[in-house]
């Protein structure tokens, strides 16, 4: 067999979220460019013929007829005119769709809550179908009383509800080397924010009787990846939750139905879905998803591990490539900011590529480890602009520039790219994804 062995692989690096685009895929996507699914385009997609018959002074047809009755859609669905508000994926990122990721359409979303059907997906072996009556959560290891919980058991414990974002640490990871994606959904869409309901993990650990040597917890899913991560005990006793509901209803299958771990503010993969087992130990396990993946390769060839926190980040959602402006006039520069270390304290906006900044207003709820909306009314004179936003969290951390981040991390770390993002507003109102040097 040694004869047939190749001395060295010459294959080019194509990591899970590498910045290099395979040339054949690039050809596949050499198309007309980005289309926009706003207003007229959405109406056109539904086949409706637009006419002025429903506009004033005429009485609209829907006013002169009856609508559908109750429970015509027992589980309601969005208006057919919103068909463009969907999760999307970037096919060339991964080898297949089973171990892959999709992005939330954050360019279309309002407020801070992501509707359940639009929460981004990340699977390591596909979304599984679990019968809740046949699902069990086992807690064992360095505990006094190893226990098995049914779903009914878990729902008997006192519950908590929190509003927190969930973000993949690879969010933005396609752009370490340069701007690639002409769409907000693809540059920043690996994030969602929900109300999560479940039991505090500390409550369950009290139930099994945590032993003092227990310093780490292995969380393991029931999916085909048996997805596993080592969680330090401090987090488990702080704010980690065992979650069975999101936004008022039971978890969606995509989010780990019937139960998942949820670590507020931490990289999404630590919030193991379809949670079946928690083992308490005295050391971390160094499993595949915390060594080979989800570690940050630095320029000196060494790597960071256990980089759990999602640092402060922000992006302007209007305007953006999918939400261009029209003529000059009054607009609201709007966006979202978030920090895995606490509340957003300030967001500043620049219209000149970071030369001058002005504070934006935070609007609506400002919650710890949650999406936070910011707004700056802006009278646009039609001149080209370089739009940026910069988040500052309650620890005083200021979102870095891309140059600052690259100076420390180089361009090969894949994960945790939280730098200030730049949109180039052109005089025709269109918006391009650019980076500044």
């Amino acid at each position, binding site marked *: *067999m040694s004869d*047939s062995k190749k001395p060295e*692989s*010459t*294959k*080019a690096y*194509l990591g899970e979220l590498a910045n290099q685009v395979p040339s054949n895929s690039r050809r596949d*996507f*050499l*198309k*007309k*460019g*980005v289309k926009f*699914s706003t207003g007229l385009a959405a109406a056109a997609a539904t086949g409706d013929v637009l006419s002025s018959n429903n506009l004033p002074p005429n009485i609209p047809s829907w006013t002169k007829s009856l609508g559908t009755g109750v429970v015509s859609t027992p589980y309601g669905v969005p208006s057919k005119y919103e068909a463009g508000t*969907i999760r*999307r994926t970037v096919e*060339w990122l991964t*080898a*297949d*769709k*089973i*171990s892959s990721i999709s992005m939330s359409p954050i360019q279309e979303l309002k407020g801070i809550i992501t509707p359940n059907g639009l929460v981004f997906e990340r699977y*390591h*072996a596909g979304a599984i179908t679990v019968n809740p009556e046949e699902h069990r959560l*086992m*807690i*064992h290891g360095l505990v006094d*009383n190893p*226990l098995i*919980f049914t779903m009914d058991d878990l*729902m*008997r414990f*006192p519950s908590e509800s929190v509003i927190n974002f969930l973000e993949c640490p690879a969010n933005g990871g396609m752009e370490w080397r*340069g*701007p690639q*994606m002409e*769409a907000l959904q693809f540059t920043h869409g690996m994030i969602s924010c929900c109300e999560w309901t479940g039991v505090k993990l500390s409550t369950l650990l009290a*139930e099994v009787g945590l032993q003092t040597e227990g310093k780490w917890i*292995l969380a393991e899913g029931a999916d085909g990846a*048996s997805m596993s991560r080592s969680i330090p005990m401090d987090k488990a006793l702080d704010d980690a939750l065992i979650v069975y509901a999101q936004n008022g209803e039971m978890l969606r299958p995509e989010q780990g139905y019937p139960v998942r771990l949820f670590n507020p503010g931490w990289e999404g993969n630590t919030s193991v879905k379809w949670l079946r*087992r928690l083992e308490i130990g005295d050391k971390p*396990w*160094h*499993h595949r998803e915390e*060594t*080979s993946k989800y570690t940050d*390769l630095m320029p000196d060839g*060494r790597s*960071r591990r256990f980089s759990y*926190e999602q640092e402060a980040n922000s992006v302007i959602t209007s305007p953006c490539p999918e939400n261009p402006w029209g003529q000059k006039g009054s607009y609201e520069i709007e966006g979202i900011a978030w920090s895995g270390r606490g509340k957003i304290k*300030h967001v*500043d906006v620049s219209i000149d590529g970071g*030369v*001058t900044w002005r504070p934006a207003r935070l609007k609506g709820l400002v919650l710890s480890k949650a999406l936070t909306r910011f707004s700056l009314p802006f009278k646009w004179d039609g001149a080209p602009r370089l739009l940026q936003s910069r988040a*500052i969290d309650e620890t005083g951390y*200021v979102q870095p520039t891309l140059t*600052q981040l690259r100076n*420390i991390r180089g361009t090969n770390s894949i994960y945790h790219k939280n730098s200030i993002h730049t949109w*180039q507003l052109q005089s025709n109102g269109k918006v391009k994804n*650019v980076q500044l040097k």
Partner: protein
Amino acid sequence: MYSLNRLLITVALTATVLLPVTSSAKDSAPLGIGTPATNAEIAGWDIDVRPDGKGLPKGQGSVAIGEGLYEAQCASCHGLFGEGEGRWPPLAGGENSLTEDRPEKTVGSYWPYTSTLWDYINRAMPFPAPQSLKPDEVYAITAYVLYLNDLVEDDFVLTQTNLASIKMPNEENFYIDNRPDTDNKRCMKNCKDPSKIIVVESLRGITPDQEEDASEEAEAESLSESAIAGKATYTTSCLVCHDSGVTGAPVLSDKDTWKKRLEQGIDTVVQHAITGFVGDNGVMPPKGGNLSLTDQQVKDAVQYIIEAE
């Protein structure tokens, strides 16, 4: 589904009202909820392995046995030499590449611990049939992947007792996250020289077309009932090979190839899918390697393949 439970909760709440309230945050546990886990139950699920070898089951496997297993179970995605097919991960090579412009992060060049390899193969591989390998097979495949990375000799036998002693070259190069690592200031005016700003534009033509996604619904309308039923099976059990063409599998959209196959009759094609088939180009494992599928599910999946555009 939880109606019995709700009834119990109602009863519990009623009882609480009648009793004096003595609880405080401190004595909230234990509540007496849950069932003791037996040793047998724990043993069945406790599959994890640590760098010190804790968790490894008894067993052993040689590089020689691993070679055959690897070629049958792993090479279609990871390549005969661990070089990786298409977008599937390479397992070998990349030595001293971590500081290069295009680092190759493989088992040999990047992974810090041998135990991780054993654990991951055991829990999640082969990708279409996770947890189908016996411990001795996992030892053998692990040994072979180590061999592909020049970490052991070709006569090596990996065992429960020697695994933890095999050190990986990159082990010492990992360190605990030390962020925050940047120190941006909240400057408001004259923060940079505007004349020195250089704008870098994006690569053209790689952003997915955001209006293509609507085509799925139209497709569903033209499918037969059997094909609609088969789509889910196709997606979870067949797509890995038949979308990408690995292992020589005919690709879903390659209508000519399927037409040729159907000349032998759909029953034969279905039978091959159920019992397995060795063709000129590749191997179709029985039921695509997912033996939990019923014959009807396989039949529906074939119907979907035939009808799908």
